[in-house]
């Protein structure tokens, strides 16, 4: 298994390198206005001077080399517009804690709610009216079909206008955490519930469950020891990867509620056209999402005894 994990890590590093290179090259196409805080007022010679000094007129390989060199020294560059001349590391260091806090709380919440809902739905498929399954399906369909951008707004709208919860985030008022966390967790809740239900129903119809029943194991124990455990195995792979959807949700949710985090920062950077900041944030998001996928595969290898033998490459 160690060999498998090592292989996955190496693979992920190569992928990461390629993707960063692709994204960096794409980012060279950013409009040059984004390197100036006073683009309208400077002359074209001044523009060229500044671009030269930033090395932006150098050939791409040279720029890439310099970029990786800086990256190895942990330097993401300086902001041009958002906070002129301030190191991006400093800016991000202020923003990360709050994003991580929101991310982890909503991740935990969605895990608890999603698994509970999934179990309830799977259980309810065996009851007469399937009430749990029907209700859960409605939630899943709405959350999956309606764009996140829209249900975030609806949650903010209903929560603030009808439930009297503050519309914007206020660190001093715990109640103001409620809506953003709900928004951030609802997507993954539906996702976990949908897959857990599906996997549990699949597992429950398998022969080994019949054999377990035939040997006299009570149905509660079968659900816990066989069905739930086995259904969690394929799900485990997707759990770290679903951090990505929380991240992308945070882009929207943080700016919707004026939460001073990373997601809101990217939106601001885009609106203010701060190229270096956009570049740093895009790359950070790409890294996080690739790490999420990598951790998913590693966790899968840990929980599934078959993995070291069977080739699982590219099975996603």
């Amino acid at each position: 298994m160690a060999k498998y994990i090592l292989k996955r890590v190496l693979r992920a590093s190569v992928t990461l390198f390629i993707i960063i290179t692709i994204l960096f090259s794409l980012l060279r196409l950013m409009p040059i206005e984004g390197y100036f805080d006073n683009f309208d007022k400077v002359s074209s010679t001044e523009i060229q001077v500044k671009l030269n000094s930033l090395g932006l007129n150098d050939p791409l390989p040279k720029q890439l080399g310099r970029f990786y060199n800086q990256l190895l020294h942990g330097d993401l560059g300086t902001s041009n517009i958002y906070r002129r001349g301030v190191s991006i590391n400093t800016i991000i260091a202020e923003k990360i804690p709050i994003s991580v806090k929101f991310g982890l709380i909503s991740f935990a919440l969605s895990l608890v709610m999603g698994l509970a809902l999934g179990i309830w739905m799977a259980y309810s498929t065996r009851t007469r009216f399937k009430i749990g399954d029907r209700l859960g399906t409605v939630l899943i369909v709405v959350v999956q079909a309606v764009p996140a951008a829209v249900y975030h707004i609806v949650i903010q709208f209903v929560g603030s206008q009808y439930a009297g919860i503050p519309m914007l985030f206020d660190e001093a008022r715990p109640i103001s955490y409620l809506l953003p966390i709900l928004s951030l967790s609802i997507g993954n809740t539906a996702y976990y519930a949908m897959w857990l239900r599906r996997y549990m129903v699949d597992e429950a119809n398998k022969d080994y469950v019949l054999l377990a029943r035939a040997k006299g194991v009570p149905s509660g124990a079968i659900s816990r020891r066989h069905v739930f455990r086995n259904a969690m195995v394929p799900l485990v792979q997707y759990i770290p990867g679903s951090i990505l959807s929380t991240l992308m949700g945070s882009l929207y949710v943080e700016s919707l509620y004026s939460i001073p985090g990373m997601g809101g920062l990217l939106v601001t950077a885009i609106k203010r056209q701060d190229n270096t900041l956009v570049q740093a944030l895009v790359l950070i998001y790409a890294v996080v999402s690739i790490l999420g996928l990598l951790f998913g595969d590693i966790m899968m290898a840990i929980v599934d005894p078959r993995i070291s033998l069977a080739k699982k490459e590219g099975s996603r």
Partner: protein
Amino acid sequence: MQDNVILSFEDLDIRFTLRGQVLNAIRGISLDVYRGESLAIVGESGSGKSVLTKSAMGLLDANGSIAGGHIWYDDKDLAAFKTEKEWLTIRGREIAMVMQDPMTSLNPLKTVGAQILEAVQLHQGLRGPEAKAAAVQALADVGIPDPQARYKQYPHEFSGGMRQRVVIAIAMACRPKILICDEPTTALDVTIQAQILDLIRTLQKKLDLTTIYITHDLGVVANVADRIAVMYAGDIVEVGSCDEVFYDPRHPYTWALLSSLPQLGVKGEDLYSIQGTPPNLFYEVKGDAFAPRNPKALKIDFVKRPPYFDVSPTHKARTWLLDPRAPKVEPPEHVYKLRERGGVGYV
């Protein structure tokens, strides 16, 4: 219930509801299973053989139910069982099962040992190291070499034949009185089949088990069965000792079934095959279910369901041909070839 009868189906009706339609999977079956015997239930796919045995363990699918009749075991009517608690007194403890495909009947994510341990703890009342020792012993009993090491392995590390041994070990660890073997060798290599059948037979003798085989493989039947019950379209059409059914079959369906044995084929001739398809059990079956496929059916076969006629005290068949008023109809001549060729033997 007679003393030597361990399990008895009486006028059993089982129905399934599928998309609002009712399927009569078992239509009024009566069958006694004797203590210590080895009974084979034979029939083509969909004839209801698995449904019949599953009903004795309360393992019917959720859309199936017993619509009438009784299943007697130890003076208890299993057909009247409602709760899981009642069934837990039967499953494993009294009746255990070996299923067709050892590739799917073990939990792929639990060690083989843990799966045997579950049965040991439930039915032998052992805990801790004693339970583990019993589980290892169970592996040894079914002829798995190096059971200590094998105990910790996962199913994917076993071959098909070895997995079926594990499934048998699990069943045995329950200490049942009846073992149901549902097509126990169908998914295995021919060379392994004989070993598994030998194993079950040995265990049966050693532990004084009653075994019920479900199969469509007459080769298996000939090797293991004391008695044979032939099923067609949810009904038992003929039942008798192994010799009686093979050498003196009376029901036209049994004739047809035996005629399609490859051993009876003549070089250069097409192998016999039964015409038509089994009836759609979503419709009410009228008369003898096999009549539409029977080229020599009587008119009454289409109108009235035949009763059982006794051929001998141990042999009965459900066909109007045994009625004294019926014309004499000889079975197809090649059915007699079986006797000449000295039985079915291993296929």
